[in-house]
């Protein structure tokens, strides 16, 4: 009887141990300045995808960043002070897709366009578009005086139906060349960048590659898989195209530029894009602040990381003199290139 009771007791203990050990939980940080700081640092440490690239480009050492900023955390600091320290730490990543959002502020890194000339003017855009331009799914388009088609794509937040794209390219079908202006386009949906790029290729092409992290280690990265651009089922543009870019061409627009570079008869013109070549994910801190970070890196068709931007084929900048005279240097350079092949 005693033996049976002992066996039963052992079985019960083993079952309880299994039950307790079997609980799957995540390490939690306290909702204190130190806890929130550590949670933020670790979220980035385990999920951010560009540590190797940032180390190569800016000598970033994330452990050293931790040590440097940890010393600035004190238990008595208030939320604004903690937010300031955390936002300065995030700026070390030099990534526009990294944000910390609280109820009172958004920490951001905008040097990728603020430190550069705008190379874009709303006033000039209005002058070129006039008042009788057409709009389809956010694409503003018209035929310029010299029979060059012009499309201004200010974001990829709109979903393009085949009817939208057919309408645009039907109207522009008789043009001798086409300008697709994605200056100041700060992104949107990757799928729409892919859909629009599909109007410029007659065959399926590899526009770039995409990967993701497979674990918390900085170098735990999946094999990059090809990003295929499939030809649009409706109207497709067959003549020469110039894509205008500036530093505020970012995120999904950066990806569009990457796709267009892989298409035939397409020339990128302007200044380097702003980058943002990592699809961002969200997480949160114990105090409820939201954190955004790049999670899925993208590479161009030659496996170059596009996080720091894409160099155009032809460099053109907006000049003060043209601006004063009401001309957009970049649009004019594109028109000349499309008409005569003359390089700026």
């Amino acid at each position: 009887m005693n033996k049976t009771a002992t066996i039963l007791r052992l079985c019960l203990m083993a079952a309880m141990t299994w039950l307790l050990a079997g609980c799957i939980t995540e390490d939690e940080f306290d909702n204190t300045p130190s806890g929130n700081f550590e949670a933020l640092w670790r979220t980035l440490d385990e999920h951010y995808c560009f540590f190797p690239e940032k180390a190569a480009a800016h000598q970033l050492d994330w452990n050293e960043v931790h040590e440097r900023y940890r010393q600035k955390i004190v238990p008595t600091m208030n939320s604004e002070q903690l937010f300031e320290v955390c936002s300065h730490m995030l700026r070390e990543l030099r990534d526009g897709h990294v944000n910390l959002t609280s109820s009172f502020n958004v920490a951001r890194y905008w040097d990728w366009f603020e430190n550069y000339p705008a190379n874009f003017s709303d006033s000039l855009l209005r002058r070129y578009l006039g008042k009788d331009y057409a709009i389809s799914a956010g694409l503003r388009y018209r035929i310029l005086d010299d029979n060059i088609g012009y499309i201004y794509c200010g974001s990829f937040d709109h979903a393009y139906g085949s009817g939208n794209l057919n309408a645009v390219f039907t109207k522009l079908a008789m043009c001798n060349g086409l300008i697709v202006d994605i200056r100041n386009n700060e992104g949107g949906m990757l799928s729409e960048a892919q859909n629009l790029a599909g109007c410029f290729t007659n065959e399926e092409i590899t526009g770039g590659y995409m990967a993701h992290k497979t674990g918390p280690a900085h170098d735990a990265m999946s094999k990059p898989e090809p990003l295929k651009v499939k030809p649009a089922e409706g109207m497709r543009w067959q003549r020469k195209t110039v894509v205008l870019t500036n530093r505020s061409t970012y995120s999904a627009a950066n990806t569009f530029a990457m796709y267009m570079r892989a298409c035939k008869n397409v020339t990128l013109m302007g200044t380097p894009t702003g980058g943002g070549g990592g699809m961002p994910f969200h997480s949160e801190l114990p105090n409820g602040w939201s954190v955004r970070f790049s999670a899925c890196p993208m590479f161009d068709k030659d496996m170059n990381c596009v996080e720091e931007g894409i160099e155009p084929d032809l460099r053109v900048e907006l000049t003060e003199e043209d601006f004063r005279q009401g001309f957009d240097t970049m649009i004019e350079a594109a028109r000349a290139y499309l008409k005569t092949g003359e390089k700026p």
Partner: protein
Amino acid sequence: MHNASPAQDTGPMTRLRTHATLFGVGYHNLLDTYLSPSEYTGTTVRILREHNRHTRLMKGNIAMQNSLQGNLAYCNSPTEDAKDIAGGVDWTIAWRYQWSPRTNLKVLAGPMAAAHLGFVYNTRNGNNPAQARAAVDIGLSAAAICDFRLLNRTWSARYQIEVPLIGLMFSPNYTQSYYEIFSLGHYDHNVCVTNPVQAFNLNQMLSLDLPVGTHVVRVGYQCGIRQSHVNHLKTHDWTHTFLVGYVKTFQLVKPRYRTSEL
């Protein structure tokens, strides 16, 4: 034919069937590190439909239980800045051998198969706003049913436990986006083999059948533990649900007429 016997899964008659429908409300603790490292807690509502019948297998000693349950949960983050909305459907089928160590006690145990389909939606996230849940498992199911007399009526208490032992589940990889999986078709260990170490799941239920007039009312408590740790992503759904519903017992009667009489 319908009677008010509270007996469940029991009896030698192979044509005896019980159908139970329960409605429940309870507590839900939800973790999904693909969406957030924080545990979200809130309320869950559940509906459970359960069918029990005896088969002709092993001289009629194998009882089959077929259950389908759906749940919907609304959970808050610890600071209540974000919400998770979760839902799911679970289907379980078990074949259990029945022993009767005592006249009023029955013990059942046997294999089971289960399938789970669900989702978790986080109201705040951008490119990782939701998580799909899909799993199939095989495991063990056991139950103990005790009938007793109280207030001159027969009552029935039941404890049931289900433990999946091996299965398959869907999971994105660590920071793999759903855009990669479903729009681009980039698969990367998205179907994972699970076992009790990396996906310790357990479902327990304690219920009491109360005779009320000619009907049987069932009240119960269900403790659900569904967890996984695959692709460096951790999930758990811990639920405590109180259920109430009704039980119907049917006995199929073979008609005694000839075909020519139709």
